[in-house]
């Protein structure tokens, strides 16, 4: 205790008079040189990965693209404006959402990342990026409806609680093509806590009100979660709560909670500006009992893996790129069919320049999230998806290995899982902070591109873009959300600064308590 108090005092003193980074210091200078002159493999992630790419990976991506394109353009496109209109009229009537859930389910969209052994497609996360771009180019709400499912699924997959994971996987694949597919959501945000949930340094100060109190055989969950994407249509939610609210960082963990759990209810769906096809739900947990087997992360383990948000932010980059592309495509189509001052809009030079700018934004955004994706494969959690020639097939073997009793017994012991995770994170070839930093780059730059394109589309179209029935104003409403969720862009900028700049010198404070 005394040590902690002394350390706190030292930190307080340091903050009272912030240290000036000593650039004349030799060690510091060497660090700067290292940061300013990274090796080729860190500078050009895509080039670095060229030597590793397995042709099977490319073909898998091609198939994923084709599948998503067919679903988006042939099946979803005729519906999405109508769904958006219906939800504008009544955000509480979920039938239009269920219609899209069934559509996505029939196309196998909810089992893309589930191993083939459990009835899924067995795709790696990074291959799913092309799917998000494709779906979101037609409707961001529809794309996010599918994407938010994986936001719930991925932490469960990463938790290594193999028995619970298998049970949920099998339920997802068994119901996917039915009337009410079982999909997932992630219950993280609370009424007083938003983006600070996603940075370990901010968690101790966050106003988290929820708590999972340990009781015999499990935990009693209490609290309210807000803005939960897919909340009201999910069969399972991955719920993040501390087991002791006075020690949030040390006790934050995750639980898999079925929608049928006693004491859980959906309070309402928010009336959002856009992305209406993906409901944002207020979820209430009142004395919800969750058995020990449904706690899927070691107590306090969540904070340790928050950097693993990197890949999900890459996916938001892909989602945003899809929105930017949709804005471009719709604006271009409208420019071909509408006239201004006696000429088709597309024949005006100023319009050609705007469309050109928009398409350039799409290409830049795509390159950004792709580069971040390669970073994940080279240095981050994507390493678990071996891509070395021939090694891509290893993924199927790894999935098979995880289905063995030996593996399951190993993961029943969470101390061993935690130790394994520590060892992986400590590996020299793993650089999770770099991956998280690239995730922030993709998230911020691609979402900004989405918003820029959505606004440019309306600037180009004039009054023709303002009507709901033309589809362009929806893109504008949809686009804004990607700058907000998955950590606001403001938080991501600081997060990036911390991982790429402040890491050189501990005297640089980023998330200051002052």
């Amino acid at each position, binding site marked *: 205790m005394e040590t902690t108090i002394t350390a706190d005092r030292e930190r307080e003193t340091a903050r009272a008079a912030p240290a000036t980074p000593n650039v004349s210091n030799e060690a510091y200078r060497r660090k700067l040189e290292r940061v300013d002159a990274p090796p080729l493999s860190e500078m050009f992630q895509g080039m670095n990965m060229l030597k590793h790419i397995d042709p099977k990976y490319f073909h898998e991506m091609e198939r994923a693209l084709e599948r998503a394109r067919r679903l988006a353009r042939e099946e979803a496109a005729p519906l999405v404006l109508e769904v958006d*209109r219906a939800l504008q009229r009544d955000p509480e009537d979920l039938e239009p959402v269920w219609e899209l859930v069934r559509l996505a389910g029939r196309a196998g969209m909810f089992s893309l990342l589930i191993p083939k052994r459990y009835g899924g497609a067995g795709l790696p996360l990074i291959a799913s990026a092309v799917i998000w771009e494709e779906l979101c180019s037609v409707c961001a709400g529809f794309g996010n409806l599918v994407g938010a499912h994986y936001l719930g699924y991925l932490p469960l997959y990463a938790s290594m609680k193999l028995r619970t994971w298998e049970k949920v996987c099998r339920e997802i694949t068994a119901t996917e093509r039915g009337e009410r597919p079982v999909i997932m959501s992630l219950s993280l945000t609370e009424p007083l806590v938003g983006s600070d949930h996603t940075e370990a340094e901010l968690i101790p100060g966050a106003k988290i009100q929820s708590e999972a109190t340990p009781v015999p055989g499990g935990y009693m969950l209490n609290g309210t979660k807000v803005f939960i994407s897919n909340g009201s249509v999910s069969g399972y939610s991955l719920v993040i709560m501390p087991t002791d609210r006075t020690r949030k960082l040390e006790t934050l963990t995750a639980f898999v909670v079925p929608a049928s759990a006693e004491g859980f209810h959906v309070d309402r769906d928010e009336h959002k500006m856009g992305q209406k096809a993906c409901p944002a739900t207020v979820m209430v947990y009142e004395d919800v009992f969750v058995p020990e087997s449904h706690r899927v992360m070691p107590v306090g383990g969540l904070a340790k893996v928050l950097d693993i948000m990197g890949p999900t932010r890459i996916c938001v980059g892909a989602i945003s790129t899809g929105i930017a592309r949709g804005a471009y495509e719709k604006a271009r189509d409208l420019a071909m069919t509408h006239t*201004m*001052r006696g000429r088709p809009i597309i024949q005006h030079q100023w319009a050609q320049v705007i469309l050109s700018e928009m398409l350039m934004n799409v290409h830049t955004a795509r390159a950004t999230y792709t580069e971040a994706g390669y970073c994940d494969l080279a240095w981050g959690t994507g390493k678990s998806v071996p891509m070395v020639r021939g090694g891509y097939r290893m993924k199927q073997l790894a999935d098979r290995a995880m289905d063995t009793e030996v593996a399951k017994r190993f993961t029943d012991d969470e101390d061993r899982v935690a130790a394994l995770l520590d060892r992986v994170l400590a590996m020299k070839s793993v650089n999770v902070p770099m991956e998280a930093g690239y995730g922030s780059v993709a998230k911020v730059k691609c979402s900004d591109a989405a918003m820029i394109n959505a*606004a440019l589309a309306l*600037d180009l179209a*004039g009054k023709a873009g303002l009507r709901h029935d033309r589809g362009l104003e929806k893109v*504008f409403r949809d686009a804004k959300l990607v700058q*907000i969720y998955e950590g606001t862009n403001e938080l991501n900028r600081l997060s990036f600064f911390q991982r790429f700049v402040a890491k050189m010198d501990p005297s640089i404070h980023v998330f200051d*308590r002052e």
Partner: protein
Amino acid sequence: MAGEYEDIACMVREFAEKEIREAVPEDDLYPDAGFREPLYSRAGEVGFLSLLLPEDAGGAGECPAALAEVLYELSRVDASVAAVVFCQAFAHSVLCAAGRADLAAAEGFIASTVYDDPLDLAGGLSAAEGPDGWLLSGSCEDVALGPVAASLLLPASTGDGTALFLVPVAEEVRLSEPLLTLGLRACPLCDVSLDAAPATLVASGTAALDAYVGSVALMRGPAAAISAGIAAGSFAEGLEYCRGRYQGYKLIIDHEQMRAELGRIRAEALASRELFRSACRDGGADGGSLGLTVQLLAGEMAARATTDGVQVLGGYGYCHDCGQEKRMRDAKQAQCFFGCKELMLQDLTAAALA
């Protein structure tokens, strides 16, 4: 400028708080919620709907500067209400400029094509003179106030060029269902189709164009006032939120990053306010270039200020319960008064070349 109209501004602020604020979220659900007729009865009683009409035609005889102050104050609370007042004032302005204030004095709303480019009128309507007067046929999109109007002020081609007509809403006038639009939703729009609808000629030839284009030039300052009011509302709500909510260890307002963001919003709100006032002082002189500039810049600034205003509130800013997402939509819609902003840029350079 502000001092000159302070009394009007005070009265509008009081009206907005008492009659408008509470109903903003519900009114914004239009066309899924009703149009609030009683509000506009009250607005009519206090003179908001006839500000530009001369006193001898039953109006307040005010100038566009006074109108702009009214719109600014209304827009801080609900830009849709301001847009209704704006559209009515624009129709009055055109009719008065054409020497037909008598037509403007009639009861009810007068719908018009305020989202159209003034240099690209009369697209889909044609007029023919019959023994009993003019008859209009054809169709016209995005007519503002159409669903609630008693008459429509529409341009149509006569064979000799473009003329302006006032068309009473009668059985020959078919109105579409009210349109759902991006923003300013409670200022309703619809498409109109006419089948030999009787119409009164307002002006034709150069007189029609002068009346229309001249009114557009006068109304650019008031249009900018709507944008400025929206930006001011965005700052006020953003500031209030940041003062009451924590991020991490401290109030959001104590994060330098958020102070900078709010500072930018405030700068844009203040600058756009000064811009619309200067355009109204100018009163359409300089061939309307200042008005055009001000509408462009105030529109841009409001669009940025409101997009950032949503960002400041995060997820809450994106939801209907708070006003920020509505302001973001309203600001973008308000940028489209009198046509596409890219064409305005072309016109600004053309004016310099003329």
